[in-house]
């Protein structure tokens, strides 16, 4: 543990200090070295961002910046107010901003988010308050969104190393913070004490509480007991479904929920799935029918309720609900036409394609990466697929690392995946998945979809862009590269008297607004 | 000694039965005995006749599986059925015990002073200081030099003889009226044994303690005992003053026992073979070292030994414990490496020998081990075990194939054929040792190595095995290295004797010469320490020495 004990021991009993418990973990405090949610949650509290989304909105607005806008197709200009300071008293100028992005690209840490800055050509700081971003492709609508997420946290050039990830202790030691809080006590992945940063000026109000203590837990059941016993005031990410169900019955506690960006889907490998391109009886039409039958048989409602107690909700598209442009094409295209499963529809698809039933299908899931409920989830999916004798499922679980390796090497014909967005934009649910160079590598390749995705990303007009996004969703829903079925909800459980919990599509918990 | 006063111990119709897996074992079948104060009563008898059990019953030290009947009256109290607490009070002041193995009778992690004081403090209020002073005094009395310092030493810092002295001191410290000594000298060398016997004799005269002495060594009996009780199959068959018993044994078993006791008579046995024939074994400057563990210096067990064994000759190898007898025997069989000098066995040089070259010579070599029980694989029948050498050397393809030869061999060692189907544990010690001889002779070897083949056996059994051995040697004419610590046994068998002392040869020559006219000091001491199994002669010798 380090940090100056400046504000003494008084705050431990302080009335308005909020205790937050989480099962997330931090990999690195330095934004150049982390690309995960746990780190982001902490970084959001202590680093400034040029732009951000306001509460309950997905629109990008200036945060630290005074203005932020496209000043040319390839140029995004940000101006800073005068006289900004870091918590340690250093000046916060455009030079810090340039430093931040230059070092992200220079370090390109294997575990860092620098890949999100793929479109950034260079950063220029003509004067102390102006920053100009030069972009590779024109009108990149996702760029401002990127600035609100992982690589967007601005760091102090006097405290961070230009060419290496800076150790957490050094950052805390240098008090190199510029967000609503600075860290005054830091025990890696155990305990972090946040104290309001008086030098913070930005979108959000100054901290409404006297400070926050974040306590990291390993097991959700322990977090659950902790919030139940009053050991923490707020439990945020992640309580299991049954824990939430349990806690909601406790009158001393309040359960808060909001939209979640996390989705679950089944990926089909177009080469190795039944009738896939590299199988002996390759037949694209039959292969599609198989996917359609699966899409028709999945009972999302049952999965949502029975496995997840409603903490995950049915998902009928590729872009989850809550994002601009999200529609639900799968709802009426498959199943009973109203979101429910339909064995008749599935049988019809298979019969039309001339497929003999039951279709043997090898289905894979990862028992350890998406929580222990994956096993239950897939046990249920197996049952749903087999219930009417249309499929003969061979279910297997594989430990995550092996799984990651196998799935991109065409080992699994159909398999489970989940996704958590890098930034809050519909694009993040399309580009990584369906562009030709995608991370699924399931051999899905549709020129039209590819072109449309590129087009929407550079369409400045919001309505026009949303229309394109809708079109993409419909097209993919026809091809069924993947079958999405669940969307996570964000849940926080707090003591009944805690206020100011806002869970919105930014998927960030803003601790500055918490009070009790 | 006459019994005018009350006896120190009075045993009346004592019966002891053990519950075992195989049913009840009647170890003692109703015996009666008296020991007068200041008297030394020896109990003799073959192994398992109930000597130890009887002695232990005096102190109430029998295991829970034992059922005791009759009465054991110790200083007027019947020990049988006494409560633990009363028994505890009796143990020590009224009767004390000296055990056979001094090394195991002392707790290794406490100083000897503590252990002596412990007994004192168990009886009455003795302060630590007093107890210590008393312990020092008694240690001095039993002949431990410099008792003031030695009292704080641990048992392992004493020699075997000293340990036995300490055990005796522990017993004497409580000034008991009876000391029960269960084979107090069996684990000791003859020279040390002589000293301990002297000490016991002094304890009796100085403290007036009665002693119940259990032993199978008739020499010890002749040396120390006033009266002898002979036990046989859990019963006392004869009790008599010692001279009477030796002079005129009444019971048939006693007669047999006395007849079986080997005596040093310096028989004249000449080697009748060809003196110029190539020796079977020839050692020149033989050295054997055991490697030191973990980088410590190697330990030299045998250094610079010369001797030969000619065909058909029996060479007796004698010496104290640890003198290197076994080591030489094992080196001859290729079981211990020769590290210096030369040792030729059956034409093979054993220094730097390769097992493969020696394997052929092995059929000419037999080995008889000391402990007949452990030298047989418990999982094989006797026939299988005796057939092993035949199979190994290709004389037979299977135990069944070898059966005829096995039967012959069994006959040669005077065992019934049917014994071939028994497992080793189903035989008595003497029978096992016969079988061991049969196995060693299976291939008609030229050379036999016998490492104390009879020292685990009762005298009467020993006599029979030795007789058999002699007969077989004459019949088959093998050369033999006969290792023993008993000079009388050597006297019985060997053509020549080698006396070993601390890994070196003290003296060697024809048996009659070495035993009859020893030149070396050490040999003389060895012979002088050997108690003669004849009370009259032993008394004379003792008188002469004093």
């Amino acid at each position, binding site marked *: 543990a380090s940090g100056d004990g400046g504000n003494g021991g008084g705050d431990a009993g302080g009335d308005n200090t909020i205790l937050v418990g989480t099962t997330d973990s931090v990999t690195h405090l330095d934004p150049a070295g*982390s690309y995960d949610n746990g780190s982001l949650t902490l970084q959001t509290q202590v680093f400034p961002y040029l732009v951000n989304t306001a509460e309950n909105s997905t629109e990008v607005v200036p945060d630290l910046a005074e203005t932020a806008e496209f000043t040319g197709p390839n140029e995004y200009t940000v101006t800073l107010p005068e006289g900004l300071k870091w918590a340690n008293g250093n000046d916060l100028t455009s030079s810090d901003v340039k430093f931040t992005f230059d070092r992200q690209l220079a370090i390109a840490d294997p575990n860092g988010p620098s890949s999100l800055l793929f479109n950034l050509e260079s950063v220029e700081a003509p004067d102390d308050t102006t920053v100009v971003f030069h972009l590779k492709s024109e009108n990149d609508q996702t760029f401002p969104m990127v600035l609100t997420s992982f690589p967007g946290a601005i760091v102090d050039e006097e405290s961070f190393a230009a060419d290496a990830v800076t150790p957490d202790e050094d950052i805390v030691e240098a008090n190199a913070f510029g967000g609503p809080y600075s860290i005054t006590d830091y025990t890696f992945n155990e305990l972090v004490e946040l104290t309001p940063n008086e030098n913070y000026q930005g979108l959000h109000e100054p901290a409404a509480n006297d400070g926050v*203590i974040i306590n990291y837990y390993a097991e959700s059941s322990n977090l659950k007991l902790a919030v139940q016993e009053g050991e923490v005031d707020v439990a945020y990410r992640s309580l299991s479904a049954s824990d939430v169900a349990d806690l909601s019955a406790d009158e001393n506690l309040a359960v808060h929920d909001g939209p979640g960006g996390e989705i679950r889907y089944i990926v089909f490998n177009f080469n190795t799935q039944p009738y896939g391109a590299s199988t002996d009886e390759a037949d694209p039409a039959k292969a599609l029918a198989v996917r359609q039958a699966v899409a028709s048989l999945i009972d999302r409602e049952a999965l949502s309720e029975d496995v997840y107690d409603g903490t995950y909700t049915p998902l009928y598209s590729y872009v989850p609900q809550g994002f601009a442009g999200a529609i639900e094409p799968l709802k009426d295209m498959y199943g009973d036409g109203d979101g429910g499963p339909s064995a008749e529809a599935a049988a019809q698809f298979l019969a039309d394609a001339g497929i003999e039933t039951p279709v043997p299908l090898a289905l894979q899931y990862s028992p350890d990466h998406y929580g222990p409920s994956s096993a239950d989830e897939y046990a249920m999916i197996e049952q749903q697929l087999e219930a009417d004798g249309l499929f003969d499922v061979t279910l297997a679980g594989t430990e995550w690392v092996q*799984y990651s390796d196998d799935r991109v090497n065409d080992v699994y014909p159909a398999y489970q995946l989940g996704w958590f967005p890098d930034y809050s934009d519909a694009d993040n649910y399309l580009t990584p998945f369906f562009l030709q160079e995608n991370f699924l590598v399931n051999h899905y390749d549709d020129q039209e979809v590819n072109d449309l995705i590129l087009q929407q990303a550079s369409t400045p007009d919001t309505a026009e862009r949303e229309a394109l996004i809708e079109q993409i969703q419909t097209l993919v829903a026809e091809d069924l590269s993947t079958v999405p079925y669940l969307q996570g909800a964000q849940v926080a459980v707090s003591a009944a008297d805690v206020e100011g919990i806002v869970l919105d599509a930014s998927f960030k918990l803003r601790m500055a607004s918490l009070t009790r | 000694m006459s019994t005018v006063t009350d006896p120190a111990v009075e045993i009346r119709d004592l019966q002891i039965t053990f519950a075992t897996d195989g049913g009840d074992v009647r170890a003692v079948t109703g015996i009666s005995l008296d020991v007068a104060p200041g008297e030394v009563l020896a109990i003799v008898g073959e192994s398992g006749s109930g000597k130890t059990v009887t002695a232990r019953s005096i102190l109430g030290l029998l295991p829970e599986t034992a059922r005791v009947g009759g009465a054991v009256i110790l200083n007027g109290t019947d020990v049988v059925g006494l409560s633990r607490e009363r028994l505890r009070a009796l143990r020590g002041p009224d009767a004390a015990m000296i055990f056979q193995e001094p090394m195991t009778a002392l*707790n290794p992690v406490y100083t000897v002073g503590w252990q002596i004081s412990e007994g004192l403090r168990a009886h009455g209020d003795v302060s630590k200081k007093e107890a210590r002073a008393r312990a020092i005094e008694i240690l001095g009395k039993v002949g431990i030099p410099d008792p003031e310092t030695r009292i704080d030493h641990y048992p392992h810092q004493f020699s075997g003889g000293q340990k036995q002295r300490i055990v005796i001191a522990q017993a004497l410290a409580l000034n008991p009226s009876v000391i029960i000594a269960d084979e107090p000298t069996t684990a000791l060398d003859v020279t040390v044994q002589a000293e301990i016997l002297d000490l016991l004799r002094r304890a009796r005269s100085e403290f007036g303690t009665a002693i119940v002495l259990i032993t199978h060594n008739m020499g010890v009996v002749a040396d120390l005992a006033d009266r002898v009780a002979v036990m046989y199959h859990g019963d006392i068959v004869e009790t008599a003053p010692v001279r009477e018993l030796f002079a005129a044994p009444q019971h048939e078993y006693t007669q047999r026992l006395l007849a079986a006791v080997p005596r040093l008579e310096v028989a004249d046995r000449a080697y009748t073979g060809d003196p110029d024939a190539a020796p079977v074994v020839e050692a020149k400057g033989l050295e054997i070292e055991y490697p030191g563990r973990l980088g410590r210096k190697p330990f030299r067990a045998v250094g610079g030994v010369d001797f030969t064994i000619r065909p058909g000759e029996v060479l007796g190898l004698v010496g104290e414990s640890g003198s290197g007898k076994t080591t030489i025997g094992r080196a001859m069989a290729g079981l211990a490496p020769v590290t210096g000098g030369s040792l030729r066995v059956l034409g093979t040089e054993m220094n730097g020998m390769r097992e493969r070259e020696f394997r052929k010579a092995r059929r000419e070599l037999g080995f008889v081990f000391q402990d007949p029980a452990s030298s047989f694989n418990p999982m094989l029948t006797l026939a299988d075990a005796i057939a092993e050498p035949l199979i190994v050397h290709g004389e037979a393809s299977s135990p069944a194939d070898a059966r005829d030869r096995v039967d012959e061999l069994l006959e040669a060692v005077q065992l019934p054929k049917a014994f071939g189907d028994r497992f080793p544990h189903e035989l008595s010690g003497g029978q096992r040792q016969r079988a061991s001889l049969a196995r060693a002779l299976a291939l008609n070897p030229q050379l036999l190595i016998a490492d104390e083949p009879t020292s685990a056996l009762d005298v009467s059994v020993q006599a029979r095995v030795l007789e058999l051995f002699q007969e077989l040697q004459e019949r088959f004419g093998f050369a033999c290295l006969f290792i023993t610590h008993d000079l009388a046994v050597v006297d019985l068998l060997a053509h020549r004797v080698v006396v070993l002392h601390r890994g070196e040869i003290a003296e060697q020559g024809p048996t009659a010469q070495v035993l009859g006219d020893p030149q070396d000091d050490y040999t003389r001491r060895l012979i002088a320490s050997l108690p003669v199994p004849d009370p009259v002669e032993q008394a004379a010798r003792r008188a002469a020495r004093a």
Partner: protein
Amino acid sequence: MADTATAAPETAASPAARKGARGGSSLWRYVLIRFLLIFPTIFILVTTVFLMMRVTGDPITAALGGQLTPAQLEERIEAAGYNRPLIVQYLEYIGQIFTGDFGTTIDGQPVVGVLLRYGGATLELAFYALIVAFVVGIPLGMLAAALRDRWGDAVLRVFAILCYATPVFFAGLILKLVFSVWLGVLPSSGRASPRVELQIGRIDNPTGIYTIDAIRTGNPAYLIDVLQHAIMPGIALGLLTAGVFLRLVRTNVIGTLAMPYIDAARSRGVSEYRLVRKHAYKPALIPIITVIGLQIAMLLGGAVLTETTFEWMGLGYQLSEYLKARDYVAVQGIVALLAVIVALTNFIVDIIAAFIDPRVRY
């Protein structure tokens, strides 16, 4: 557990067997050689772990396999140097170790720092567990030996078996169910309440061993809080070892009670109580001490499960997390440390046994 009990006679014999012809200076030579023997053990373990970890996959795939395209992954793996020939990586690693550099974890923590931070926690847990084991195991073991073959003995033995038949995590769950959920008298997880943790972390040079740190704050409330958190993990892990101790002590005391020198002491009228308490106990202790060394390895293994069950942020818990993340460097570092601890404990225990046994002292 049970296997260590069977190993007991073997190890029990060894110090005594080793005494041989050892004199004063050779005892020190023994100590030295015994000490040098630690190194091959550690070397073998580190090498084994190095090779094993490389077979199980790399940390980049583990972290980002569900997010990046294969090309991007490949690039990052390349950048981290994980696709170089094994032998190169191995030599580099061994070289690093020799210079005292244990590397950094994938999340940039110096491994030495991880070891220091979490080592204290595991040490503390092991300490409490050993206390429970000693306090429960040894007296009850002696009692069982004294009551041999009576009902009390049977009950104690069944208790011992029960102790090591119960997996620590099950014991942990049951303790939690009863004391945290139903009775609500003990905290369910963690090493201290967050606020207390914050305070005791504030003292100068915290040791990371909360009990010590809490004492140093001088605030009894903190100490009580820390102790309350330690009760259940200590018991869950300690009972396991207590069962082993109980059985060991019983067997060894009974074995010692059968030695002739006990009979000899009995024949001198020493009371039965003193026989057990004095004459048999100390000789019986020597083999027990040797086995305690072996116990440490098991305790550390059990620590993984206990720490997981009770959120006890120690090395065991970190190890299983790093293992899941395929963080080679971290796993190698932790295993090397565990190996050192186990080897050192065994060494120390052997030496203690050699010194306690007067047969080898001079």
